[in-house]
């Protein structure tokens, strides 16, 4: 039985279609990522799955139950851990008091010590929430989701706005939960996060899933593993896409406003050829960079836009 299964989800807010016919299956024990730019419908989607938003149409099953089943809904909530994007806990309470409060809502639960250990907040136990850093607040928020010993954990943009160190600490929390056999559904607009944490991702854009699969499989669909980006100095005309495409090892060309990106299978052949072409034109490079292809490049090749500012 899959942990989450939904079909044909549709949700409109007035004229805006937030979720436009979504099918999704998350298997028990996997970490699944909903990936997409802001406004792609990730939060609406996850909140429908969490039973907090009612879809206009479509069917949702979570851990084999439906949210429409009134008496079953509370039993279902006992088994979920939910972290919402915008929740601010009460400033005047301490970390311990907040966890005790959330803990009291569940029949089975972790002790305060256990859950503080899971998110590594032991030393902040008696601190008021108003004194916590952004990363600590976020870990507390996840602690409140984990306190119920959930089978299924929902995380909505858990690391947005955090510094790199706090982000890594949260990734560790998620990894430990996975290692203990938990299922995770998370949303993010950080590629690195999705590649690092998720077994499978679904790339969302404008309320739809435009690609789905393991991160490595999605990157493989680009047909090459490397991205070469370059720009020419002093506004020299960039060689045409067809000309660049004929260079050895180049699989695809994406012209952009300030740089041109080449999807490349063999960097060691493509780069010298590119340099030769530029020199032959009498132009000069102002920038040249190569990186391994990421989900970001997948998103760009699918939509022609960048994730971050899409």
């Amino acid at each position, binding site marked *: 039985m899959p942990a989450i299964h939904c079909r044909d989800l549709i949700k409109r807010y007035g004229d805006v279609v937030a979720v436009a016919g979504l099918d999704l299956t998350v298997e028990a024990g996997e970490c699944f990522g909903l990936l997409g730019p802001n406004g792609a419908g990730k939060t609406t989607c996850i909140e429908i799955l969490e039973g*907090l938003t009612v879809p206009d149409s479509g069917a949702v099953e979570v851990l084999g139950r439906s949210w429409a089943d009134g008496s079953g809904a509370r039993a279902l*909530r006992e088994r979920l851990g939910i972290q*919402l994007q915008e929740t*601010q806990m*009460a400033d*005047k*309470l301490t970390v311990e008091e907040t966890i005790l*409060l959330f803990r*009291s809502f*569940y029949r089975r639960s972790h002790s305060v010590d256990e859950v503080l250990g899971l998110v590594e907040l032991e030393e902040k136990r008696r601190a008021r929430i108003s004194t916590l850093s952004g990363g600590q607040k976020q870990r507390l928020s996840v602690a409140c989701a984990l306190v119920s010993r959930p089978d299924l954990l929902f995380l909505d943009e858990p690391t947005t706005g955090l510094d790199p160190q706090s982000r890594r600490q949260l990734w560790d929390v998620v990894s430990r939960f996975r290692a203990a056999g938990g299922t995770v559904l998370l949303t993010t607009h950080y590629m690195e996060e999705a590649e690092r944490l998720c077994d499978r991702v679904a790339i969302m854009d404008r309320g739809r899933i435009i690609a789905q699969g393991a991160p490595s499989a999605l990157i493989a669909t680009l047909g090459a593993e490397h991205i070469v980006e370059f720009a020419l100095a002093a506004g020299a005309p960039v060689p045409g896409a067809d000309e660049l495409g004929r260079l050895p090892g180049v699989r695809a060309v994406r012209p952009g406003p300030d740089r041109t990106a080449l999807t490349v299978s063999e960097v060691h052949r493509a780069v010298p050829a590119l340099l030769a072409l530029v020199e032959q034109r009498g132009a000069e490079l102002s920038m040249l960079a190569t990186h391994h292809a990421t989900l970001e490049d997948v998103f760009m090749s699918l939509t022609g836009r960048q994730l971050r500012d899409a």
Partner: protein
Amino acid sequence: MRNHPLVQLTLARAREFYREPEAVFWVFGFPVVLAFALGIAFRNQGPDTLHVGVARGPGDSSVAAVIDRSPTLAARVLDSSEAQGALRAGRIGLLVLPGDSLTYRFDTTRAESRLARLEVDDLLQRARGRRDFTVVRDERITTPGSRYIDFLIPGLLGMNLMGSGLWGVGFAVVTARSKKLLKRFMATPMRKSDYLLAFILSRLMFLILEIAALVGFGWVMFGVGVRGSIGALATITVLGSLSFAGLGLLVASRARTVEAVSGLANLVMLPMWLLSGTFFSYARFPEAMLPFVRALPLTALNDSLRGVMIEGASLASLASPLAVVTIWGVASFGVALQIFRWR
């Protein structure tokens, strides 16, 4: 037991309240300060000295001397232009024009002027030889229960119950909603009834302290007692507190921002501050308004509190105002639950 959601929610409410010094001041300090200031300002002292002017002219100083003999009157001899100004500005309540026949000049709409006229006339007539036919003796008394502070303390108590009910519940609910905490709670198996009940319980916890602060202060500072039974007082305050907690919930049931709920709470409370007889008796309002005024929850609560504290009334005799308080509470609670926005 300690791990019951109701206990934890109530504790959280209580902590959020007592860790907010401003809130604690408005609930406990402010009414006491108000009672103190008003109790001092309107304390029952000896009658005020009435100032009387005597216009300059033949015999002015002898007239002034006669008036000055009274401990409650003070006379000054004034030039006519000066006298007119003093009379107009209220520095003197009465102007005497001396002579064989006397003229009193005063504003008949001012009670103290009329009083000064009576006293001055009495003194001057006697000085000129009038005889009294009957022997009279004055007995001065001050009855506890009839002073302004006795009237004020129950009113402040009622006003305080209203304020802490509306602000206490309203602010907390809307703050939780605007911080998406309410939505976060909805993502847990928490029962909605536990959440709402926790507000009631934490209100009752602080209620005891509120009453103790204000009634205790009135008793120690001004000797304001409770004539009726403490049990009756407790029953009325619990009822009043629950009723206003219901109104607070109603006010907070839809609002998304703290500003919105402040506006609504003020809108609800303002008419009651003015009309419900906290600082002065609502009997001063026109007869036609009284049924409306009496239907307000704070009026009914104030009447009940005064009934018990000043008149020593029993709960049975206060059935109708208490019914008004109860109906407001039940109705607002019921409507609030129907329209409450849980996210």
